[in-house]
Every structure is written in C-alpha cells, then in structure tokens.
C-alpha cells in the first residue's frame, strides 16, 4: 500500500475540510486513482446529515501516486479536527504574514509506532529566509475492504425539484437570524425559480422568498416527464435549522450550489467546487426531512 501526493491547492483542501469538519468528529477519506471522496455518514451526527463528495484528484494534488491491493484504492477514517490543524499551518502562512512561507507540501501514508499516519511534510521558508521543514502526522485508521464495501450512499427518490441557490453567505445571514426563533426550517421551492425559507412559531411566521432563480436540469439526456407538471407547485421539506446551518459552513468553498427537494424524505444539496466550466468536484449533502415538523 503506497500513497504519496503533493498538495498543490492546500487552500481548497483546507476549505473543503472546514466545510465538513463541524458535522462530525471523524470522517472518511477515500482515495482512488482519479478521485478523492470525503464521506461523513455517521448516524450519530447532528440531525443525521450525510456528506458524500467526489473531488477530482487534479483539483487538489499533483504528483499523485497510489497503489493498493484493493483496486488501488485506499480508504481511511481520521479525525477531521486533526486534519484541519495539519492543513491550517500552510494555509494560514500563505494568506497572512505568518512566520513561514510554505513552498511544498507532500502528503503520504506512513507508519509511526505501528500506527498508520497521514504525514504532511511542509517545506517552508522562514521570515529570515531559512529553510524549514514542518511535519504533521495525522493518525488514521485504514479501513479493510469489507468495511469499505459497507459504505453506501443513501438512496433517495427522484427529487421533486432542483433549484440553483443564491449565494450561500447571504442565505447564511438570514438563517442565522432565524436560528434563535425556531428549530425547524421549511425549505420550499417550485420548478419556476421560486425559493422560500420559512419558520413558523408561536410568536412569528417569517418567510424569505427569492424569485427568478434557475431550475437547472441535471441530466440533459433525461427524457421529458410523461405527465404535465405544474411549474408553480411548491414543494416543501422541513429540516433541522442547525443541520442546515452546518451545511451553510461550506459557503467558504461554494461557487454554485443546487438544492433538490425530495418531499418527506430529504433535502439534497450539491455544492460544486471550482467554476461552472471546469467543475473540480462536488460535495453532496443529504439532510433528512423532519416529517412531523410544522
């Protein structure tokens, strides 16, 4: 089992980790020859939100070499906080006037005291021009093939509607104001560019509405639906406002986000990394519906 890569876009890696770090303490990284998958599938996390992501290797790494007995895939579980801490030091230094400037970051699977670690070797230049080598070891548990086989994405019915969300930081401001008022958020959208975020409590009903958003078609080759659909029909899903806020943490990375409503089932959010033309990856959030909400 060999694994080694240069982290080229450390800030992208950092921001993705940051987006999912709040969700659960440990998450799964699955490296395949083409993709990096970040998986949060714990039942125990806040509200049962799951994240399945697929990121192209070349959007973060260069010099990527991977070798293993199971189709050259390596799957590991690790502490999100520890990974974040390891990535923070080179990220911070490239932005602020830190004590050193990272030049080269190599990530590799190594062994230390009989434990598997993900080692980050950072070659840096200090403020006075000296070369420095900083090394972070993040303890990981490499998953066995039968454990990996158990991982499966949640199954969802066909969504009722897809809608392109407004900038997430704007939604975040609004949802943060709603948070002290209610625990449950109603997420509504139709196929005609309308999105509504609403809460309903004893003291207040608050609803924010966007109009003229885009309803994208995910698959262009999909046959048109047989029966005529009502474009203005509003579909609703109730979700935990805290789970939704945790999803909104990924406003740091998101350029384009598409939300899909599966009524009475879940809210799915596709967060695209990178521009529209060259999508570097997508994070998929599944937020389960609260059925008896409202």
């Amino acid at each position, binding site marked *: 089992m060999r694994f080694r890569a240069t982290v080229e876009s450390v800030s992208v890696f950092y921001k993705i980790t940051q987006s999912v770090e709040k969700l659960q303490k440990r998450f799964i990284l699955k490296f395949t020859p083409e993709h990096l998958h970040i998986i949060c599938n714990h039942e125990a996390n806040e509200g049962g939100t799951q994240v399945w992501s697929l990121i192209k290797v070349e959007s973060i790494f260069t010099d990527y070499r991977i070798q293993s007995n199971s189709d050259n895939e390596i799957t590991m579980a690790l502490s999100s906080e520890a990974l974040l801490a390891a990535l923070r030091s080179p990220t911070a230094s490239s932005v602020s006037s830190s004590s050193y400037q990272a030049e080269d970051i190599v990530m590799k699977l190594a062994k230390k005291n009989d434990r598997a670690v993900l080692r980050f070797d950072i070659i840096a230049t200090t403020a006075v021009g000296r070369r420095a080598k900083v090394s972070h070891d993040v303890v990981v548990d490499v998953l066995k093939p039968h454990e990996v086989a158990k991982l499966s994405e949640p199954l969802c019915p066909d969504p009722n509607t897809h809608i392109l969300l*407004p900038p997430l930081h*704007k939604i975040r*401001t*609004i949802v943060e*104001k*709603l948070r*002290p*008022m209610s625990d449950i958020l109603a997420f509504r959208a139709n196929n005609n560019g309308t999105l509504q975020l609403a809460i309903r409590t*004893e*003291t*207040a*009903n*608050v*609803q*924010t*509405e*966007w109009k*003229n958003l885009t309803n994208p078609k995910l698959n262009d080759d999909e046959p048109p639906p047989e029966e005529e659909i009502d474009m203005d029909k509003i579909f609703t899903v109730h979700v935990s406002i805290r789970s939704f806020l945790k999803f909104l943490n990924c406003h740091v990375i998101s350029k384009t986000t598409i939300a899909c409503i599966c009524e009475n089932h879940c809210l799915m959010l596709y967060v695209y990394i990178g521009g529209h033309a060259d999508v570097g990856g997508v994070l998929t959030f599944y937020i389960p519906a609260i059925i008896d909400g409202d």
Partner: protein
Amino acid sequence: MPTEQPPVLTASVHDLRYVAAILRGVNFHNRATVTVTKQGLTVKVEEARTITAAAWIFADIFDEFIYNPETPTDDDFMRTTQDQEIESSSFEMPLNTVLDCLNIFGTAASSTGTGVGKKGWKKQNQDSDRESGDEEAGGNRVEPLNPNASEKHTGMRLTYMSPGYPLTLLIAEDVVGPTTTCEISTYEPEPYLDFGFDPEKVVLRIILKSSWFRDALSELDPSYDKLTFISNPPEMSDNPMTGKSRRRNPTKPILRIKAGGNFGSTEMDYPNDRDVLESFECMQSVSFSYRFSHIAKSLRAVQSSTKTSLRIDNDGLLSLQFMMPPPKGKENNAESSAFIDFQCLALDDEII
C-alpha cells in the same frame, strides 16, 4: 370586528436602519407596548417595575404613515404630553423578534448584543452634535455590518390590521433580491407603568452632548452594582432650602458620577463649562443612587443619540432623554427627530 375596514396602521420606510437603531435603544426587555397615534409611534418597555423606556418615532420619519383609528369615537383616548386628547391604538409585541426580523439581511446594523464594547465607541465621531446627515453621520448612529451595506438600503413596510391580527413586516433589500415577510404575533397591551415624572419637582436639570455622557458610562466597569449622581448648585456652599443631611464633598463638584462595586469604585467630575454641559440647573444639592445595571441599559440609546437631557426630581426619579439625530434627508426638520426617554427609580436606601 368589521373585516373590510382598512388596516389600523400602514407605514413604510425605504431605509429601516434608523427605525431599527431607535428600537434597539429600548431593547432591554422582550415585551414592548406600541402605541399608535396620528403623530407616530411610541414603543414602551419596562423592567422590574423600576425602569421604563419609551422611544418616540414620529410619523414623518416614515415615507408613508397611515393610521386609521379602529373605533372612531370611543373612550379609547390618551393624554399626550401636550395635554391634547388624541386617538390611539396600542398593542404589545415581542421586541427582540421584531429586531431580529428587521435585521434578517444583516443590514439593520451591528448585532444587538455587542453595542456596549468600547471598540465601537471609539469609532464614533466625537462631534456627533452637528446636525448633518451625510454618510459619516449615518455611519455614526448605525454601524453597517459590511461596507457595502451603507449604499444598499433595506426597505420595510409595516402593517397592523387590528387587534388580534399579527404585525406584518415586509422587508426587501433591493428589487431583484429576496423579500422577507414576517408575521409577528401581537398581544393585548398591559397597563403601562407611569412614574409620573413631574417637571415641577425637578431639582437637577442638565443638557449635555451624548458623547460626554457616553464616554463616562463606557469607562465604568460592568461589575459595578451602584451608580450615584452627585450634584451641587454652582458656587453655593450651602443651601438653606433643605435642612436635611447632605453628602458633603470637600470640592463640591457640580456634577459627579460615582460608581462602585465589590472590586473598586470610580468617580468622575464634570467641569462647569459650557462646552461640556450645555445647560446646568441645580436647585439643591443632590445625591441619588441607581442600580448600575439599570443605567447601563440606556447605553445603546445614548450611543446612537446626539444630546442627552438628564433630570432628577426631589424623590430621586431619574429621567434621561436622548435626542436621536434627524433621519437622513430630513435634517432640516428637527421635528422629525426621534427621542428615547428613560426613567429610573432611585435606590431606596440612598434617598436623602
């Protein structure tokens, strides 16, 4: 209740920051009683039967203000300060929720909990007295969350149908952006606590720039529990009017603010200088103490105001009136300036 009747109150404003700043000034208790008259709105709040605050928002602050009395001729009258009988309607609303809704886009101003920090105060213009409404003065009373917010105005339309109906707020940032509709429950108003401040019984009357008062209050440590106003008539060593015992200070300060708690105390003297105290009238030596936490509730109001009037009557009832700067575009019309009125009872054991 006839349903075809027009709403009791319809009001709209193109920039809600001014209204939000005034409401924030009295936001120390969640339940606020709103009284609507043709002249405007009064929002009253009380806590612990000891401190009351009222914000007066006049009708011409709004771009549109239509008041339809619910019962044209009824016993529902109220006496205003001008001793005129005018029609009014009142209801109670959860003030915190209203403010959260006004700030839903994060554009109403900085968050309500952080207004006391010294950092925010230093940014404030020392010369906040001038009656100009340019961009700087606008930023003086409300600090926008982000720099872009100062150019973008968030408009608001408020509707109140009649008793039993919710207060409806329609908030929009711009034409293309989202709109927020808030329906906020209203309640039957509780009788309002009136301390009956009598201007005839006033023993101390001071008008000063709010910045001088604000700076003094901001110096005080939050752990203090008591604040005392000490004042003496200028250049009068003794006052024959009262035979009661008085606190004697060797220097006979004309105005001293003294605050203390378990960990220490602070004393601040104001000079008898026209630049500091615009007007100063003291009939007799005065020393009244108040709970510091109560006085501190006025901080948010003093922060956004330009002038402060401080009056104390002979029972120690404190009245603090904060004049707010006139809204943008209406600088010449001093009538439309809102003000906030705080009244606070003195601590019993300190009454002379």
